[in-house]
């Protein structure tokens, strides 16, 4: 057997006990508790039962949540071999407003085992065991998962710790069960084994992931590329797709029509633009909003920040139009509100930092009634250059914000799922998630989203179809 162990840096001494958590499922998932006495799963702090979780200590409630998430995965999977996940709580990356909730990946990978669908190809350990129908790792954990022990403390999403209830009613807290489902997914197979930053394969050998990952620009799968081509592909925003049949077939039942921005008029700017949608104001609907585009200019350097009520000339220019404003200085909802008060029917916010895809527009203001989207800095500059050929009140450039008749949110025009490939590269997130443009939100997007349901399969989610593409 060519068995390769990815990491062995956690000594067995840390494993205080292997606790079987589920016995009545199509696959048994076992959490190997790697926490020290008194911490993480062993934390004796007394707590009140919450949301169906009857544990009376913090550690027990954490274990109960693990068991609950493991049950969901166990019902979905089919494997004769128990899946062992070495888990614990550690201090992970934290900031005041953002934090790593958890991380997970394969602890073991395997290739060229009996029954392997492809030769000379890495399979995640849990999947390899399933296909082999035997434990090739002699009872060792095959997945490593860690969760942030500081979440909710000072300077770590303060006040926004894990919700340990099982009912999903997490309010402003982070739903631990949802995070567990996501991280287990990575460990079971939803992760790239080829380094996207260097392009190098693990031990020079491709994984099953590389056969399904395809770059629309290079028109090659990752298994066909050089290291340099894989590096370029890893930041080829919204041009990196998953070609697996199970995902593509299930996608139409899961994804909604894609919000899109189409620009028409002057030949130099015609096309469909990448957008980030706003967390405030109306949703973009099929009926859509169409109007001529006009810029706001209120800075001597040519930018239009729209942080103050618009001047008479600016207001006259954007009345009845879709206003182009620049990111910066004040919050997005203030800019959009000022444009709305001046008579605009929509807003395009041009990013002031390079990178794609454009993130969404955060903020809230229930009095905003016009749609707003964010576009990239490059696209903003292209539009602004063309808008120099305008008159006071006309530009001849038109924007339509609507829902695509042909494309679904999160897939390419052929219906294949877009994978997360932001520029610049985000280690730990890039290439191993679905793209953030998917709507409704999917479990395996890189950011925790409230709307994700606790389902793993179509018509609610595409996580399990992707695992099926890999061989599950």
């Amino acid at each position, binding site marked *: 057997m060519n068995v390769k162990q990815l990491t062995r840096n956690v000594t067995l001494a840390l494993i205080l006990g292997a606790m079987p958590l589920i016995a009545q499922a199509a696959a048994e998932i076992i959490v190997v508790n790697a926490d020290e006495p008194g911490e993480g799963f062993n934390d004796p702090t007394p707590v009140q039962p919450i949301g169906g979780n009857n544990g009376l200590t913090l550690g027990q409630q954490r274990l109960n949540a693990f068991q609950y998430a493991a049950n969901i995965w166990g019902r979905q999977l089919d494997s004769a071999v128990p899946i062992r996940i070495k888990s614990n709580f550690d201090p992970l990356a934290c900031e005041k407003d953002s934090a790593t909730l958890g991380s997970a990946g394969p602890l073991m990978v395997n290739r060229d085992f009996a029954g392997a669908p492809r030769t000379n190809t890495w399979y995640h350990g849990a999947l390899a065991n399933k296909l082999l129908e035997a434990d090739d790792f002699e009872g060792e954990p095959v997945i490593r998962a860690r969760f942030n022990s500081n979440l909710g403390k000072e300077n770590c999403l303060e006040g926004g710790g894990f919700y340990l209830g099982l009912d999903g009613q997490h309010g402003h807290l982070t739903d631990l069960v949802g995070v567990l489902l996501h991280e287990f997914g990575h460990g079971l197979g939803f992760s790239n084994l080829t380094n996207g930053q260097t392009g190098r394969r693990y031990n020079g050998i491709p994984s099953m992931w590389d056969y399904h990952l395809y770059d629309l620009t290079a028109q090659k799968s990752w298994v066909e590329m050089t290291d340099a081509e894989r590096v370029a592909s890893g930041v080829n925003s919204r041009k990196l797709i998953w070609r697996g049949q199970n995902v593509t077939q299930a996608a139409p039942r899961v994804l909604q029509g894609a919000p899109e921005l189409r620009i028409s*008029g*002057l030949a130099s700017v015609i096309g469909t633009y990448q957008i980030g949608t706003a967390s405030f104001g109306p949703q973009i609907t099929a009926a859509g909003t169409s109007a*001529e585009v006009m810029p706001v*200019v*209120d800075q*001597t350097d*040519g930018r239009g920040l729209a942080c103050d009520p618009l*001047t008479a*000339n*600016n207001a006259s220019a954007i009345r009845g139009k879709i206003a182009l404003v620049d990111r910066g200085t004040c919050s997005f909802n203030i800019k959009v509100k000022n444009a709305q008060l001046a008579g605009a029917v929509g807003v395009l916010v041009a990013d002031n930092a390079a990178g794609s895809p454009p993130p969404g527009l955060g903020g809230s203001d229930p009095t905003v009634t016009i749609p707003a989207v964010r576009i990239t800095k490059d696209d903003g500059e292209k539009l602004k250059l063309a808008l*120099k*050929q*305008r*008159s*006071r*009140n*006309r*530009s*001849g*450039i038109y924007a339509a914000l609507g829902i695509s008749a042909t494309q679904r949110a999160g897939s390419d025009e052929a219906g294949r799922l877009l994978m997360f490939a932001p520029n610049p590269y985000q280690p730990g997130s890039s290439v191993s998630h679905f793209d953030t443009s998917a709507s409704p939100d999917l479990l395996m997007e890189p950011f925790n989203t409230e709307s994700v349901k606790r389902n793993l399969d179509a018509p609610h989610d595409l996580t399990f179809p992707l695992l099926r593409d890999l061989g599950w």
Partner: protein
Amino acid sequence: MKAIRTLSAFVLFALAGTASATPLIEGFDNITSLPGAGWSFINNSTDAGSTWFQGNEGIFGAKDGAANSYIAANLTSTNSMLGTISNWLLSPTLSLRGGETLSFLTRTEAGSLNADRLEIRLSKNGNTSQVGNATDSLGDFSLLLSSVNPNLVPDGFPTDWQMFSVVIPDLKGLTDARLGFRYWVTDTGINGSNGNYIGLDNVSVVPTPSSLACLGLGLFGLMASVRRRT
């Protein structure tokens, strides 16, 4: 290439009548070809922005031919929030003796109330492109041939294509000269009151012999018959 029927008819006649002068016909089908044909772009505006650019058919279309086949200048000639525009478009060097007819079409946007102004100036100083470097400098182009909306009246610029003609004054013999089209607007920029967007099309300079009146009538008759056929 779009046809300029009226002018073509004149030119056929003119070439036969006065071979030593340089005719000019420009319909601005593709302004990227202008520098190669001897045209120059000089923007002396406050914090200079855009030079003259290919017409934007979304504002209005050309008189004839492709919808964007005209040249335009606008308020983005200045990047200043409040300043002065002096944005020059210089013709190729022409050999003129005086008596030739300069014709051009110009217009602004329908309903425009932000006053535009276009000056047409002449330099008799060879192939010079000297227009100075200030918003109010004229350099070698001190001779004013024509001004459209000279007093910057808010609704004083034509809002449909209008033809203007002016006879070049006597130059005392064959002289190398250049025409300067100057988009000149004060109190403009985003915060200014004046300046919007103008188009310029079908610029022509043709010699005008003394018999023009008689022959010209015949040519106009021909032109009308051509139009009926198309």
